[in-house]
């Protein structure tokens, strides 16, 4: 399922990032966010705005388009 489908605050594990824009994916890697990482969704901003995710104590904001590319599974 997509990250944007889950309930905010629950921990999930990333299974796939391959459909994501290359640059964004590399930047997320720098933050330690990659396949196998455990993250949670914090907030979805209105009108398909950015979402904020929490990963290893960091808060990162990315666009909805990219967030839709994050495939996750329950953990």
């Amino acid at each position, binding site marked *: 399922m997509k990250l944007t489908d889950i309930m905010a605050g629950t921990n999930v594990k990333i299974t796939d990032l*391959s459909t994501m*824009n290359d*640059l*964004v994916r*590399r*930047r*997320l*890697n*720098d*933050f*330690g966010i*990659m*396949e196998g990482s455990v993250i949670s969704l914090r*907030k979805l*901003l*209105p*009108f*398909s*705005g*950015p979402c*904020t995710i929490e990963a*290893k*104590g*960091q*808060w*990162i*904001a*990315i*666009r909805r388009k*990219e967030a839709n590319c994050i495939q996750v599974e329950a953990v």
Partner: protein
Amino acid sequence: MITVALAGNPNTGKTSLFNTLTSSYEYVGNWAGVTVEKKVGTLTNKQGQLIDLPGIYSLSPLSRDEGVTTSYLLDESPSMLMNVVDASQLERNLHLTVQLLEYGAPVVVALNMIDVAESRGLHIDERELANQLGAEVVPVIARTGRGCDELVRLTKPEHRTNRLLQPRRFEYGSLLERAISELETKLPADAGPKRWLALQFLEGNILVLQKLRQLVDPAWLQLFYDATELQLKQQTGAKDMSQYIRSQRAEIIDGWLQRSLRETHKTGRTLTERIDDIVTNKFLGIPIFLVFMFLTFKLTFDWIGTPLSDELDALLNGPVKDGIGSLLDTVGAAAFIKSVILEGIIGGVGGVLVFVPQIFILFLIISFIEDSGYMARIATVMDRLMEGVGLNGKAFIPMIIGFGCNVPGIMAARTIEQPKERLLTILLTPLMSCSARLSVYSLFVGTFFKSNQALIVLSLYVLGVVAALVLAKLFSSTIVKGESSLFVIELPPYRIPQWRTLMRSTWEKGKGFVRKAGTFIFGGSVVIWLLGYTGPSGWNVSMDESFLKAIGSVIAPLFAPIGFGNWQAGAALLTGFLAKEVVVSTMGIIYAAPDDAGLSGMITQFFSPLQAYSFMVFILLYVPCLATVGVIRKETGSSLWTWFSVGYALVVAYVIALAVYGTCKALGFQ
């Protein structure tokens, strides 16, 4: 003289640390090939230099600006690396640390923000961590200066012999180790730290790749890279080489943290979370921001800025002017000289310097927003809107700075990684009503809209923003068609900025404005005064017979449809190209006004309130000032786009002023 390079992630308090460790600093031009300024400071013990490297998450750059650190490590040989690490974000920060340790220069780790870490329940045993890392680890709180003496002490040469002088070696599994050895043999002896080069190459560091291509056959390198990656994927199931390397490092770092980091239970939601719930709230986010900006303007004009300005004005036009006047009399200066100095120079420059208090307050508030962490939230909240017109949420920040002065605003666009987005931001930032325009507004609203000052000014600022958004949409769908965007923003915990950092930051921004006042406006003031003093018939003519009137009269008719077809307005606008504040200076000279109050009085005879508003709208939009045009040329590297920015602004200004004047007149306003 030893050189210490300061490197670390963004948002680690690096600037704060830099300020605490240096007694003085200067900008020595840009780093080669980019528009990032090189900042070099002198250590407080006066025995070395501290070079501030831009904040990065990894040595592998995603944009040219991020390549500065790698380029520095490739091209120069620092005596030592000082790595600022955020103690509350240890895992991520240590990834960069590993890369720096592999480089080979002695590394000192400044473990910053330990107080923040402690309050979050993170307890770090720095001695154990130092053992694991094989480098000195100094806990510091840059904000207060704690631990900084120790850091400076460690930069002295005698302390460096105690540490391992060989590059730190981490293991990456047999396959990669074989590949690294193979590549190392191909590198010439003087290539530098070979293992570091090999690892960076395999990680995909573009700059290292470029460097290696000069030393090793590029075709071989490509084959080698692809073959190694393929093998790696087959053997380990890794997605790609850089991710594999990263996960190897993660294991190593994990081992370190298990031995040196103790986490006690976190106590509920942090203050940052609670603030964010309000500030990034669905409904409240943007309104809160608007209120914040409104308060900013209130503070700048009404509450602090203007009263201070008035004091400065009284000083300049009173004691200073009189004092110089009598001095000139004493030395028997000619009437001409006296006139140039008192009316031309003091009148002109003085009329602008009085706005310095307002500008510094604006810059102070902007610096506060940056350092506190609120900027990142603004970029996030505004991103949807920006995305809608083809911009990046990060573009909002240069534009915010543009409200203070377009010049640093445009320079701040460098944080935008994608070239087309950056160009678009640069083109649109001049539409942000800068503080120079403020001096013109101040004059007119003070005269015509006394009871609604803040509101009228706000309307102009909003008009600028709206124009920018509309044009953004237009440009991004036509001439500046974009490529994929990179929007990944870290939202750091809120913090109260350190006073010293704020001051330095404000001063750096304000200095630009003051320098502008000194050079362009000074020179411009004298020239304008001269144009008003001389005419076709000779020296010391009355205003009506001067060159200024002649030039102004030629262009005046063009402005008749938008409400100010008189030569004074025309001449003033022309001089406004030098710097928008000069419009005020010019008017002061043209109307032969003895001071601001006098000028206020004079312009009521030449403008009606509506005409004044139309005039201000035109000033808001018409052309970027000379300094801004210069910066645009430098940042875009293109004359074409620079001319474009001047041209489109003129057109837009005219059209909108026409629309405003026309409709309001039709509606019966005055």
